């Protein structure tokens, strides 16, 4: 390594070596997943932590889904959507209506995954409708369109009496459990990570870097942008459905611009263009909000201040454009090394 040695890096290099060692043990990721999944059952079963902490764990999961999915559009693709709370509300309302009005009570716990799926699918469909006109032009246009969408969705729900109008839907069954949250969170992370490390995902990245060049390198930019936006909306809807069934009460006011801003903060805090960053950002923000709760109003002064400080010292967020090696598919991680080794092997006997 020919990097410039900085003074006083001994502890830093030591920690880095330790970290690299950990990241090299890829088998740990599936093990952790199994342990996590088991814990998600065990925690509520045996009350390993109190109800309050269990609730926060669910919120962390929901926020990580929101952050990862918004990061796809705002971080990986470099567009600026502020409508994430809107797609979330679509998922929340669809699933809440299913729960409170349409489905038989007795079957609810079994049908819950289908409700979440339905919430996600309708949100994805709405995402498609929003994306179709917005991606014809570039730049700040998407921000304006998604802002308008956010307001439209809110007033639509406010004006439909069947879904409670401005009062919203109360008394939604608490169907969001820790295992289900864990399942959907892992699914969201896995699918978005898979998408990012595919030809479409590389297309998304190239759009952020230089859209015209991307188009000229055969990337169907229009199609790729739609895909990314629809996947992002789908998981916003999923998060909304989970959210409705843990809060047990939704109203149009829950999904306003403040909610979108919260998600934006989590994305930029954790770091743009990074799965690891989304997980870190969603988790830290949720936990910090709870820790700082005793501060009352001052919390809303302190949080933005923290964000400003972060932007000064780490403008791309904690993990901006970087990734845990665990999350990178093996072929992307060592493909070039394997190629070189194969090359050396085939060159050796020749010479």
């Amino acid at each position, binding site marked *: *390594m*020919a*990097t*410039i040695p900085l003074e006083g890096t001994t502890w830093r290099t030591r920690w880095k070596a330790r970290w690299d060692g950990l990241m090299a043990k890829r088998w740990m990721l599936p093990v952790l997943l199994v342990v996590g999944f088991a814990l998600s059952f065990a925690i509520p079963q045996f009350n390993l932590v109190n109800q309050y902490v269990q609730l926060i764990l669910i919120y962390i999961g929901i926020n990580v889904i929101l952050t990862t999915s918004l990061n796809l559009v705002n971080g990986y693709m470099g567009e600026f959507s502020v409508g994430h709370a809107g797609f979330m509300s679509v998922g929340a309302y669809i699933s809440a209506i299913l729960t409170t009005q349409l489905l038989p009570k007795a079957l609810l716990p079994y049908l819950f995954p289908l409700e979440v799926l339905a919430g996600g699918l309708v949100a994805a469909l709405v995402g498609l409708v929003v994306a179709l006109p917005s991606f014809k032009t570039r730049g700040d246009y998407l921000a304006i369109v998604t802002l308008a969408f956010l307001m439209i969705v809110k007033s639509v729900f406010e004006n439909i009496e069947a879904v409670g109008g401005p009062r919203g839907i109360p008394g939604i069954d608490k169907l969001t459990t820790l295992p289900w949250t864990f399942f959907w969170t892992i699914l969201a992370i896995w699918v978005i990570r898979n998408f990012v490390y595919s030809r479409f995902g590389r297309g998304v990245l190239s759009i952020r870097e230089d859209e015209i060049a991307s188009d000229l390198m055969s990337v169907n930019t229009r199609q790729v942008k739609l895909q990314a936006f629809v996947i992002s909306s789908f998981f916003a809807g999923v998060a909304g459905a989970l959210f409705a069934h843990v809060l047990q009460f939704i109203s149009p006011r829950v999904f306003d611009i403040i909610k979108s801003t919260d998600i934006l903060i989590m994305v930029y805090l954790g770091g743009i263009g990074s799965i690891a960053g989304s997980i870190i950002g969603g988790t830290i923000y949720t936990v910090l909000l709870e820790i700082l709760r005793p501060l009352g109003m001052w919390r809303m002064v302190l949080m933005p201040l923290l964000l400003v400080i972060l932007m000064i010292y780490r403008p791309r967020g904690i993990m901006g454009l970087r990734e845990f090696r665990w999350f990178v598919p093996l072929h992307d991680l060592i493909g070039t090394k394997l190629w070189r080794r194969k090359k050396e092997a085939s060159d050796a006997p020749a010479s």
Partner: protein
Amino acid sequence: MSTAEVLLSVQDLDISYGNIKAVKGISFDVHEGEIVTLIGANGAGKSSTLRGISGMVPYHGKISYRGKDLHKTAADKIVAMGVAQVPEGRGIFGNLTVLENLKLATWQRKDKVEIARDFERVFTIFPRLKERLKQLGGTLSGGEQQMLAVSRALMSRGSLMLLDEPSMGLAPVLVREIFHVLREINQAGTTVLLVEQNANMALRVANRGYVLETGTIALSGTASELLGNPRIKEAYLGG
């Protein structure tokens, strides 16, 4: 070799990008009133050296201008000290007109009459720019943007001018014009540090030259020495 005051001094300059070392401990001086040129192959570290001097990239080593260490000096302060430059990637303000781009270059000058004369001079060299005064910088063709970038450096009238390949992307007839102008402004008192691929032209206008190879200075001398050097001829002048 000029005995005039040392205007710019570079000592043991090291510059890296990621894992790639671009400049490896080079040292050279530029004296008041000279045209000094850095020549060498692509990737030899010429542009990086310029970027280091203008404070655009972090480096190790010592760069001083008029005896003042530039290491902790911000890029805008370096410009304010009188170091004018054609920045990397031309640095045209795409949403400003040609006229606004040019005016921006003169913002710290007070000499209205001289500014007006400089406008005229720039337009004599590049009549094309005069035709396009109201056009947005971003809509100019590549070569026209290059003309604008060079004009801007000329207009800012620094005492040291850093030029990164002024002839790039210009038609042959304009290339000769640019070098002619360089000599003119030098005679008017501006010191020039010139990075140029067109080594032939560069050495014809320069007093001295340094040949960079893979981040180190391989050879230095007066321009005529270098022009006559058979190795230089073969490697950089195209035989």
